């Protein structure tokens, strides 16, 4: 069974997903991070393949991507490392990257490599739904990969329903009008948006992301969504880390428990 399906079957609330940049802080960190995330109690893992021009990302992920590319990460290494780290764990692992990388790798070959590496689904923010439907849906869904689409505070209700029809994994509820990056808290309008979307009776689970970096933001997001994704906050912690396992455990604990606010 696809591990993403299995996760949502088993858990509908307080799902924690960790995003990290493959090849950062060190070229060989990927597998260790995946295992550390599992051990620390993360429910889902998003392995980011760095891109030279990440327009949807803020400073933290720009920096980790740049460093990872300097370290020598590439698509083939990425798949090898994810396979090594992810093969024996129960948690779903997702590919996250930009479309040009997939296009150059070759969409069919990409799906093959994902299957081979045990990747359960993908998030490709700059592959828009209309082009996905016209050219890639059959290939990706045919390979059993679960698709994830982003929605934002400005996505119309009609479009949210269209994206919900299209997605087979979950809907990624982007918390604000912004690029990735951490913040301390959510304001009233963001909560209003979470609430509005969560009452829409969507077929896919909602997972919130962008700005989840502490217990307050995680808990607020989880009031309305099935779970939340922490990316920039986690990468910042890794930046200063001496021991990936310890850092990951501490970071996960700080998100899950209120005493760390």
């Amino acid at each position, binding site marked *: 069974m696809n591990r993403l399906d299995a996760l949502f079957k088993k858990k509908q609330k307080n799902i924690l997903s960790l995003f990290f940049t493959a090849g950062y802080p060190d070229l060989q960190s990927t597998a260790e991070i995946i295992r550390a995330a599992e051990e620390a109690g993360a429910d889902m893992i998003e392995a980011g393949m760095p891109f030279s021009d990440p327009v949807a990302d803020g400073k933290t992920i720009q920096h980790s991507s740049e460093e990872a590319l300097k370290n020598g990460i590439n698509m083939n290494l990425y798949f090898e490392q994810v396979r090594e780290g992810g093969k024996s764990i129960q948690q779903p692992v997702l590919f996250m990257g930009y479309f040009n990388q997939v296009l*150059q790798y070759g969409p069919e070959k990409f799906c093959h490599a994902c299957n081979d590496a045990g990747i359960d689904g993908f998030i490709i923010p700059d592959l*828009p739904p209309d082009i996905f439907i016209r050219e890639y849906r059959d290939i990706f869904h045919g390979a059993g990969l679960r698709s994830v689409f982003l929605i934002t505070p400005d996505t119309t209700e009609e479009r949210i329903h269209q994206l919900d029809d299209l997605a087979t994994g979950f809907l990624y509820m982007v918390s604000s*009008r912004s*690029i990735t990056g951490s913040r301390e808290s959510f304001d009233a309008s963001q909560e209003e948006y979470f609430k509005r979307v969560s009452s829409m009776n969507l077929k896919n689970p909602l997972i919130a992301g962008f700005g989840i970096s502490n217990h307050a933001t995680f808990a607020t997001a989880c009031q309305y969504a099935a779970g939340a994704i922490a990316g920039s906050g986690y990468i910042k912690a890794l930046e200063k880390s001496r021991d990936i396992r310890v850092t990951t455990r501490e970071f996960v604990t700080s998100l899950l428990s209120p005493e760390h606010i």
Partner: protein
Amino acid sequence: MNKVTGEVDNNGFYGRFGGAYIPEMMYPNLKELENRYREITDSREFREEFTGLLRDYVGRPSPLYRAGRLSDYYNTNIFLKREDLNHTGAHKINNTVGQIILARHLGKKRIIAETGAGQHGVATATVCALTGTECVVYMGALDVARQQPNVERMKMLGATVVPVHSGNKTLKDATNEALRDWISNPCDTHYIIGSIVGPHPYPDIVTRFQSVISEEIKAQLEQHNGNPLPDAVIACVGGGSNAAGAFFHYLQHPEVELIAVEAAGHGVDSGESAATIALGRPGVLHGCLSVVMQDADGQITEPYSVSAGLDYPGIGPLFAHLHQKGRVNFQHATDREAMDAAFLLTQLEGIIPALESAHALAFLEKRKFTPDQTVVINLSGRGDKDMEAYLKYIKEHNGGKSHQ
């Protein structure tokens, strides 16, 4: 040859190229623009204001000048389309004038732009000063350092210049940062992109505004020659906006050869080049599928050209399409060839061209046109901004060649 036009299809594509490969965060901005730009720019009110400003503020029509001594030198008939005489010194202002009016119709109060050499930044800061609009220009930190005079001009015009420190700190990175700003400020901000690149509908918007160049060439050439059609039109191409403008109304006349000259830097095979069509493959950069310079993994590679305006690893999707269809002949010129062409024009005609435009002039060395042929070269900008590079070249090469 297939009949080709410069028109984008209903999905935002030119053949297989173009589209809007954008994250959802950018969708509302672009959708609004896509839904409204045609209706706005086709309206009589818009047309009148746009043509009025192009005439009275920019100084259009720009002259079509028969370069007598240059024609004698090459033993053919050479006309220069004098975009260098526009206000702010390049074709870039045609686009920014159009886009600032568009922005007002869209109700946008804040303008952002990217710039490489600073020409588009200056043209944007200029129309923002003209209309009293807030203006933020993103510029790679490296370009800020090497294009100081234009940075000062933008500041004097009231713009905020934001140095971009990511990536290689040049035009590509400035464009990334402008796109990020736009994602974060969707309601009040209009992004004035500087070339025919970016997601649909930008390539079409900029092409339309620049197409005034070939509209004028046709009328002017008719007056000069009794025939609106030259044998060839030559333009330099970075993103492709001046070339698109100079070619647009000739696309449907297959008897007119259209020649686009890319920047080869130190040579196409030197590893330091910006000749995208020569070196690139289909790929996605800055929201559109076009030809881009990239490695096997799809990471965008850094281009190089002495001319900052051509120092871009992509090209407008319209040109990827026109190349594929064989409608445009793609050529390239090295730094050195462009430099020589710039000195030749200066010495024979008393016109110091922009380094970008000098790449188009350099093609005259590669193809012998006959005495009865007519060739139009789009002189996209003037060379004031490039004085430092020219002086450096004189120092290194004993005064340049003499062509007296």
